[in-house]
């Protein structure tokens, strides 16, 4: 029996392979990850689903050592410029939480990991990045 899964955010698709889906402004092409009323760039109100690449380049990062209660630290937060457009923030896995691990132009790829299970047995699935 497979466990029921739910993505932690609406812009993550788990099946058939994990990827992100943006809302693309039909008029100007601006990409958004949240529910929209209109486009912040041009004001138009028509959007279409736009599949984002699962690979990209490091744009910025920080190594978080202090956070609120129950947030495990340290960890690396990254913003990734996805190939072909769009950018997204996520955690970086697979490297030590050390700024020396991060280089300009570093290539990253999207993966997924479980983020907990609710009382009905449904598993939340989060995305994260790792070195490509």
């Amino acid at each position, binding site marked *: 029996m497979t466990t029921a899964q*739910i*993505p*932690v*955010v*609406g*812009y993550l698709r788990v099946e058939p392979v994990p990827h992100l889906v943006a809302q693309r402004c039909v008029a100007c092409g*601006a*990409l*958004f*990850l*949240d*529910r929209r009323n209109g*486009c*912040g*760039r041009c004001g138009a109100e028509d959007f279409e689903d736009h599949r984002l690449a699962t690979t990209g380049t*490091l*744009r*910025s*990062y*920080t*190594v*978080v*050592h*202090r*956070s*609120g*209660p*129950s*947030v*495990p*630290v*340290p*960890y690396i*937060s*990254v*913003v990734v410029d996805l190939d072909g457009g*769009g*950018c*997204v*923030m*996520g*955690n970086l896995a697979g490297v030590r939480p050390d*700024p020396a691990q*991060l280089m*300009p132009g570093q290539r990253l790829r999207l993966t997924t990991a479980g*983020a*907990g299970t*609710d*009382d*009905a047995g*449904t598993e*939340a699935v*989060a*995305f*994260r990045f790792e070195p490509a």
Partner: protein
Amino acid sequence: MSSPDLWVLGAAMTPFTRYGPDVDLVDLAHRAARSALGDAAVAFPDVDVLALGTAYEPNTNPAQRLLRQLGQTGIPAYNVVNACATGAAALRLACLAVAAGEADIGLAVGAEKMGKAGLLGNATRPKTDGTRTFSPSGRYGSVLPVEGLLGTQTMPGIFSHASTEYALQHGVTFEQFARVAEKNHAHSTLNPLAQYQKAFSLDEIMAADTVAWPNTLLMCCPTGDGAAAVVVVSGERLRSLGDEQRRRAVKISASVMTTQPWTETDGVVYDINTVTRTAAHRAYETAGVGPDDLDLVELHDCFASAELLHYDNLGLCEPGGAGDFIDSRAPWRDGRIPVNVSGGLLSKGHPIGATGLAGIYEVVTHLRGEAGARQIDDARVGLAHVLGLGSTCAVHILERAAA
């Protein structure tokens, strides 16, 4: 766009510190307001409009509560909130009322009682005890709080992201970011109103606990309490006032506010740069001055690494050259363009609603030649910048001039 004929007639701030439970928001606002009115040599009944900025208590009618202590003259009053640009927004409102001809004299007050409330309070993860059922909610359709799961949106995290983006592009080092804090802590030793007045060595700053790399604890502003106030007057009214008032008045050559234009990281991480660049560009154009004309700058160093980016955003250094700029000691008080000679948010403190007006107070005090031990000699033109996440930027350019 030309600048309206607006002047600062009076300015004041309380010490920034942690006040006890017997001092509330209205006490702080009243102290700053009374001091600014005294500095302006204006009686409160002559004030035509009041704007009171506070980020934490805007829904408690603080402006009306202040009027009950200053005198209920029946003037229009505004309760203002605009994140860390709250105090500057209050000043903008007073300026707008005077520029529109609805008021001759306006009073802008900013006050905050933060206590020890940290800025990490929203960084929580779900409790694992008790029942829960995953159900998408909010504009991102999230089934869990995502702090620490999908990166970070804490204040230190956001500003550190912005800083590493600049560092990846331009090769800025951790040591260069830390030098900003070394400078501002050193500057604060000359400011009796600063929350902290202690110098730290570069080694101490770099060895302090990391909050969000590259910012260590000594590279993050503290929370605290305090208030600041500014009296604004029209040029026409100023010319009817006394010699001493005219002599000490400081010209507002530009008062600009901008909000964040769309950029490709919108909704992912706040862009603190574009909003500042557009505000600075408009302020320089309005005032008819450039970065080389500035004798001092008070800018929004909520984190040491953010100050470094604003050297570039405000055009104080060559494009991409902010690291070299701090290495050259240009922004030290004896350098080419002194930056945050008050100690900045890092050491003077950052009671949110007061910050924007405290920056104005600092610049005004230098332009009047009244800054005592920390006076920048013969200061004639100064710039005050604040940034509120969301984002909003306010830039004021002030000049010593004959009324």
